[in-house]
C-alpha cells in the first residue's frame, strides 16, 4: 500500500516520461523504490564522530606499540653490551734491558710482584718528576695496606743520554725502591713498542745535546704474572690511581696456564 503511495508521489511529468521511455534506455532508469523525501541516508563511510574516534585510537595504539618495541630493543642492546667483554689491550711483552746497577732485566723479572712501569727520560722538565712523585705516593699507600707487593719501575725513552749511572742518580730522587731501566737504543725501542709507548727522539742527536723527548705519558700496572692490567694517564689523580690499584690487587685471581708470548 505504501509502495503505491510512493510511486504516486513521483511528479506526474516524470512518471509520464518514464512510462514512455523504452525499458532498455539507460538515460531514464526505472525509479527505484527508495525515499525521495530529501533526507539522504548517511553511509557509514562519511565523516563522523565514530570514524574520528577510531582513527585517533588506532594512531595512539600504533604510537604505543612503536614506543614499547623501541624500549625493548634498547634494553636488548644494553644487555648485550653489559655482557660483552672487550678483552685486554695487548700491552706488554718481552724486553731485555739493564738496571741502573748494570744488571740485566727482562720481562721474566716482573713475575712474582705487581709492577708500576713509567716511561720517561731524566732530562724531563716537569711532567716525568710529577708522574714519578705521583707513582711514589701510590706505592707508599699500597705498601701501607698490602705490604711491599708493588715494584715501581722507570724505563727511559732516551738511551743516548740516560746511561745506567745517569738513571741511578735520577731514581735516587724518588721512591727508594724505584728501579731504573735503560739499554741499547734497539732494546729500548723494542720495549717501548711492546708497551705501545710513543716516543720521538729528535734525529741526529749527539751525547751532550740539549733536547726534549716527546713521549706518551702513562704508567702501566702489570700483575704478578707479568700481564697488563691497567694504564693511568696524566689526568688521573693519585687518589684515583691508588683506588684502582688497590681494587686490582684485591680482586686479582691468577690466570690458569697462560702460554707466554
Amino acid at each position, binding site marked *: 500500500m505504501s509502495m503505491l503511495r510512493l510511486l504516486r508521489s513521483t511528479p506526474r511529468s516524470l512518471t509520464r516520461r518514464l512510462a514512455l521511455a523504452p525499458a532498455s534506455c539507460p538515460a531514464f532508469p526505472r525509479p527505484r523504490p527508495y525515499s525521495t523525501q530529501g533526507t539522504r541516508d548517511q553511509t557509514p563511510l562519511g565523516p563522523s564522530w565514530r570514524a574520528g574516534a577510531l582513527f585517533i585510537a588506532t594512531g595512539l595504539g600504533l604510537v604505543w606499540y612503536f614506543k614499547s618495541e623501541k624500549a625493548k630493543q634498547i634494553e636488548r642492546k644494553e644487555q648485550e653490551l653489559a655482557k660483552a667483554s672487550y678483552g685486554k689491550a695487548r700491552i706488554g711483552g718481552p724486553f731485555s734491558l739493564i738496571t741502573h746497577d748494570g744488571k740485566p732485566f727482562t720481562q721474566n723479572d716482573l713475575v712474582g710482584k705487581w709492577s708500576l712501569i713509567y716511561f720517561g727520560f731524566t*732530562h724531563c722538565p716537569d711532567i716525568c718528576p710529577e708522574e714519578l712523585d705521583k707513582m711514589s705516593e701510590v706505592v707508599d699507600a699500597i705498601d701501607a695496606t698490602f705490604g711491599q707487593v708493588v715494584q715501581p719501575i722507570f724505563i727511559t725513552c732516551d738511551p743516548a*743520554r740516560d*746511561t745506567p749511572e*745517569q738513571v741511578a742518580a735520577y731514581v735516587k*730522587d724518588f721512591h727508594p725502591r724505584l728501579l731504573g731501566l735503560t739499554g741499547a737504543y734497539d732494546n729500548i725501542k723494542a720495549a717501548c713498542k711492546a708497551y705501545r709507548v710513543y716516543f720521538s727522539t729528535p734525529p741526529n742527536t749527539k751525547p751532550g745535546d*740539549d733536547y726534549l723527548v716527546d713521549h706518551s705519558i702513562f704508567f702501566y700496572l702489570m700483575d704478578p704474572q707479568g700481564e697488563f692490567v691497567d694504564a693511568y694517564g696524566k689526568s688521573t689523580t693519585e687518589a684515583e690511581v691508588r683506588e684502582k690499584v688497590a681494587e686490582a690487587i684485591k680482586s686479582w685471581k691468577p690466570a690458569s696456564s697462560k702460554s707466554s708470548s
Partner: protein
Amino acid sequence: MSTPVAPSREDRKRCWESRDIYFSCLDAAQVVVPGEEGTKCDAQKKAYGTDCAKSWVDYFNKRRVLAERQKATLKEVERQRLEAEAKGFRR
C-alpha cells in the same frame, strides 16, 4: 767525555722558581710572549736562563703562550654560552 748530568730535584726546583719569578714579572708587565717585554725583566730573565737548560726555557715559554691562548678560547666559549642562554637556547 762526560755528558752533562741530568738535573737533580734541587736543580729542577731552582729552575722552576726562577721561571715563576720571571713569569710573574711578565704578568706584571702584562706581556704574554717571553721576549716581548724589552728590558723590563732582564735580571729575572738572566737568572731563568742560567738555572734552566735551553730546551726547558723553550718548552716553558711555548707552554705559557699556549696556556694564554687556551684561556682566551675558553673565555670566548663561556661568553657564547652565556649569550645563548640569555637568548633562551637550552643545552
